[in-house]
C-alpha cells in the first residue's frame, strides 16, 4: 500500500515546527526542470495545500532566494474532484488529503512534491490530463438517453447492482491509476491517443456503462474499442493501479471482467452473432 500510516494511529506531531518542502519545478512545456526548497512553518491541521498556499504568499526559497509562487491544480480540497493529484515522497496521491502531521511530524522533516510523469507538465506541479477525458469519449462513457423530455423513470435496479455501479462511478479522473501503471506512458501527441493504452480508468468506465440497462445499448461499440489497439489486451496485469486508487475501485476486477467480455465478444463476432 502506498498510503501513509493510518490517521488513527498517528504519532503526535511536534507543534510549532517548520519542515523542508522540495518541489520539482518547471516553467512550461519544453523548459528544463529544477528543484527548489522551501522552509514552511506548519500550522494546525496543515496539508500539502496549505503548505503550497504559504509558498504562494511567501515565494522565497529556504536559501533566501526570491522566486515565483509554485503553480498547482486543486479544486474541492476534500478528495472528491481529483484535481490536486501529484507525486508526494515518490508516491502518487491527492495533495489535499495529504496531512503534514502524518508525513513530516518532526522539525526539519523533508517532503518532496513532483508533478505526475505520465501527463505533459503545464507548469510546476500542474499537468494536462485531457487525455483521460479523451479516453472517456473512446469508450463512449455515457448512457444514450433519448433526450431530456419527460419520459418517466429509468430502469428499476437491484440494490446489489447499484452498489457495484456506485463504486465504479466514484472515479474522479485523478490519474493515480495511470501514473502507477507500467503500460501507460507519457504521450504528448494528441494524434496518437486513439491508439495508445486506455488505462484502468477508462476500462473501468466501460464496465460501468455496460452494467446499466440502457447503457448496454452501446456495449458492442465499447467492446470493439477495448478489443482494438490500446485496449484491454495492453494491460500487463501488474495490478499497480488498484493499489493506488484513492476511491478503492476494484480496477483489476473491472479489467478482468472487460477482458472476458472482449473474448466472448470476439468469439461472437467470429461466428457472426
Amino acid at each position: 500500500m502506498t498510503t501513509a500510516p493510518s490517521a488513527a494511529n498517528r504519532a503526535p506531531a511536534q507543534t510549532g515546527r517548520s519542515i523542508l518542502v522540495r518541489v520539482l519545478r518547471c516553467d512550461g512545456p519544453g523548459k528544463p526542470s529544477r528543484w527548489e526548497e522551501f522552509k514552511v512553518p506548519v500550522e494546525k491541521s496543515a496539508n500539502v495545500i496549505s503548505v503550497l498556499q504559504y509558498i504562494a504568499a511567501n515565494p522565497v526559497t529556504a536559501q533566501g532566494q526570491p522566486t515565483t509562487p509554485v503553480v498547482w491544480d486543486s479544486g474541492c480540497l476534500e478528495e472528491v474532484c481529483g484535481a490536486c493529484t501529484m507525486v508526494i515522497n515518490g508516491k502518487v496521491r491527492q495533495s489535499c488529503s495529504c496531512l503534514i502531521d502524518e508525513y513530516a511530524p518532526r522539525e526539519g522533516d523533508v517532503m518532496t512534491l513532483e508533478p505526475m510523469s505520465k501527463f505533459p507538465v503545464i507548469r510546476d506541479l500542474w499537468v494536462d490530463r485531457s487525455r483521460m477525458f479523451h479516453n472517456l469519449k473512446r469508450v463512449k462513457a455515457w448512457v444514450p438517453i433519448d433526450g431530456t423530455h419527460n419520459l418517466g423513470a429509468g430502469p428499476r435496479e437491484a440494490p446489489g447492482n447499484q452498489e457495484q455501479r456506485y463504486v465504479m462511478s466514484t472515479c474522479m479522473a485523478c490519474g493515480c491509476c495511470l501514473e502507477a501503471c507500467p503500460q501507460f506512458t507519457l504521450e504528448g501527441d494528441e494524434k496518437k491517443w486513439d491508439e495508445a493504452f486506455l488505462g484502468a480508468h477508462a476500462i473501468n468506465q466501460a464496465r460501468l456503462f455496460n452494467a446499466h440497462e440502457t447503457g448496454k445499448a452501446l456495449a458492442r461499440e465499447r467492446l470493439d474499442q477495448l478489443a482494438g489497439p490500446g485496449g484491454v489486451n495492453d494491460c500487463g496485469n501488474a495490478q499497480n493501479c488498484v493499489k493506488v486508487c484513492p476511491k478503492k475501485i476494484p480496477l483489476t476486477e473491472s479489467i478482468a471482467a472487460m477482458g472476458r467480455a472482449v473474448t466472448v465478444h470476439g468469439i461472437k463476432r467470429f461466428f457472426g452473432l
Partner: protein
Amino acid sequence: MGSEHRVIVVGGGLAGLAASVRVAEAGLAVDLFSMVPVRRSHSVCAQGGINACNEVARQQGYSEYEHFDETIYGGDFLADQHPVLEMANWAPRIIDLLDRMGVPFNRTSEGYRDLRLFGGSLFKRTHFAGATTGQQLLYALDEQTRRYESEGKVTKYEFWEFLWPIVEGGRCVGIVAQDLRTMQIRAFRADAVVMATGGCGLVFGKSTNSVICTGAAAARCYQAGAWYGNPEMIQVHPTAIPGADKTRLMSESARGEGGRVWVPRKAGDKRRPKDIPESERFYFLEEKYPAYGNIVPRDIATREIFDICVNQGMGVWGENQVFLDLSHLPASTHHKLEGILEIYKKFAGEDPQHEPMRIFPSVHYSMGGMWTTFVKGSYNPAQARAKHKSGTAAPIGAEPGQGMLAGDPRNMVTNIPGLYAFGEVNFAYHGANRLGANALLSCLFDGLFCGLSVVNWVRNEAPSKAPAAKMAQGVFDAAVAREQAKAKRILDTVTGPGAVEAAVNPYAIGKELGDEMTAACTVVRSEARLKQCQSKLASLRERYAKLRLADSAGWTNQSFTYTRAVGDMLILAEAIALGALERRESRGAHYRTDFPERNDEKFMKSSVTKFDPASRTTRLEWQEIDASLILPTARTYGKKDVSAAGKPAAMAGAGV
C-alpha cells in the same frame, strides 16, 4: 460552425451542464467555458441529496405543493413564489431524467429509489447516491455533455476564465475570456450568454466551497451593469470540520439519517464523550425543537450552535465545537454515509462510527446572487392566499406549467437582455435561507427549464434579426483591449520575484478580506460591526490599488489570476456588507442583534444592489416580491425555550 447562432455557457457545474445539454439538444451550438475541467466543478462536492416529491411521500400526504410551501417557509418568505412553485412541480421529472441518465441512486430492496430525511421537512423526499450525490449528478450531466461534444454540438473551453460580458445595443453579445495556460485574452461572440458560475464562498476566506468559488465572475457582470439581489443572504452551514486550508462539510444527511447534536450539560466538561452518561448530555436541538429536532433548517441550527459555544461558553472542551454523534447508528446507516465519514476520518483522524465528530458552523452557500426575472404562469388561485397546511392536497391547477411560463425568454434573465444567470449564481428560489438538497434541484431546474428560454430568445427575439456573428468587429476588439489593459496594470506591479510585504501582498489582502467578512457578516450582524466592516473594506481597496505581484510570467500565471479575482471579491464584499447593513431586520440567515425581529412591512422585499461605474460605488434599492400564493407566517419550527439544566421552560410561539 453549423448554425449561425451560438450560445455561450460560462460554468460547467450542474447548472451550466444542464443548460448546455438542453440548448444543444434544441439544435443551437454551445460554447462551454470553465476554469476547471467541467467534471471537477464545485458541484462535485455536494453530498446529501436532491429533493423531489415522490410516490411514497405522496401517499403519506406530501405533494409538490408542499415542497413549494416548505421552500418558501424555509426561505423565510423572501423568495418570489411562482418560480419556486414551478421548480417544485418539475422536481419529480428531473429525478426521473437523472435516473434515465444512469445516476446510481440508492435503491430499496425492491429496486425503487431510496429516500432520506432532510432539514425543513417531516417527509422523506430526498433522493441520494451514497453521500456523494453531487458527484454522481455532475458526472451524469458531464457524460451527456461529452456525448454532445463528440457529436460536435458542444465546444468546451476548459481552463478558460470568463473576464467580462460584452454588451452592445442593449443586449449581451458575447464575452471576453482568458486561457489560463497561454494567458491569451480574446473575445467570443454569442447570441446569449448563460452565467452558471456558482457561489462566492471564498469572499469569506475559509468556507465549504471549492477554491474556484470566488464569485469573481458574478462580480464582473455586476460591475458591467448587471444587478445583484439579496447579497446579504449567505448561508452558514451548521456542521463543518475546521481546517487549515478550508472547512469541510459534514452533510445534513448525517442528521437526516439520525445523527444527534449535543454538548455536555456542564460547561468545560473534559471527559471523553463515551464517558458522559446520557443524562449529562444536552441535546439542545431536540429539546428546543421537539418536532424537527436535529433537522431544523440550517440558519436555526447554526445560530443555536453558535449561541451554545460563543454566548454560553458550552462548546466541547472549552472550544468552539459541538458533537455531531453518529456512533449509535447501525452499520447499514454508516454504510449509506460512507463518503462523508471517510472525509472525517481522513481529515480529523478519528472514526465517526465510534467517536462523535466535532463540528462548527461555516460559510456554505449564497442565496443571494445575480438578479433575475421571470414570467408567471397561469396559476393564480382565486381563493385568498393561505398558509398551506401540511398533508393536505395541492390546490387544483398547480401542476407544471402553472408557476412559470415555460419557454418565455425572460425567465432567469438578468436586467441585461441575453445575459442569463442559472444555478447558485442567481438569487431566485431560496429566499433568506436555502433548504438542504434544494440547491442541486434549482441548478438542474434552471438549466433544463430555463434552457428553453435561452433558445427562444435566440430564435425568436433580437438575435434572430441581428445575430452576434454579423456584428462589427470594433466592439469585440475594444472589450479585449480593456481587459488587456487591466491585466497589464496588475502585471506592471511586479518588481521581481520573491516575498511581497503584507500591506500590498494580494494573498494577505485576500486573507484579511476573508477574516473580516467572516467576523462581521456571518452568523450575527450589527449596525456598529457592519460599519466597521465597511471601513475595513475601504482600506483593503486602497491597499489593493497599490498591490505588488511576485510573478510576471506570461504563461500559467496563477498568482495573477488570483490577484485579479481579489479585486472583484472586494467589490462583491461591499455589496454583501451594504445589504447586511440596510436590511434592518432579522430574516432567515440574516440575523441582526439590533433588529432581532422580522419586519415584513418594510423588508419583505428583495434588496437589489447596483454598481455605479463612474463613482465605483454600490447603491441599494428595495424591490417588491411576488408573495401572491402563500401568506407569510411566523417561522418558528415549533421552538420551545429550554435551558441546559434540563426541563423545558415555557413554550414560546407554540403552534405556529
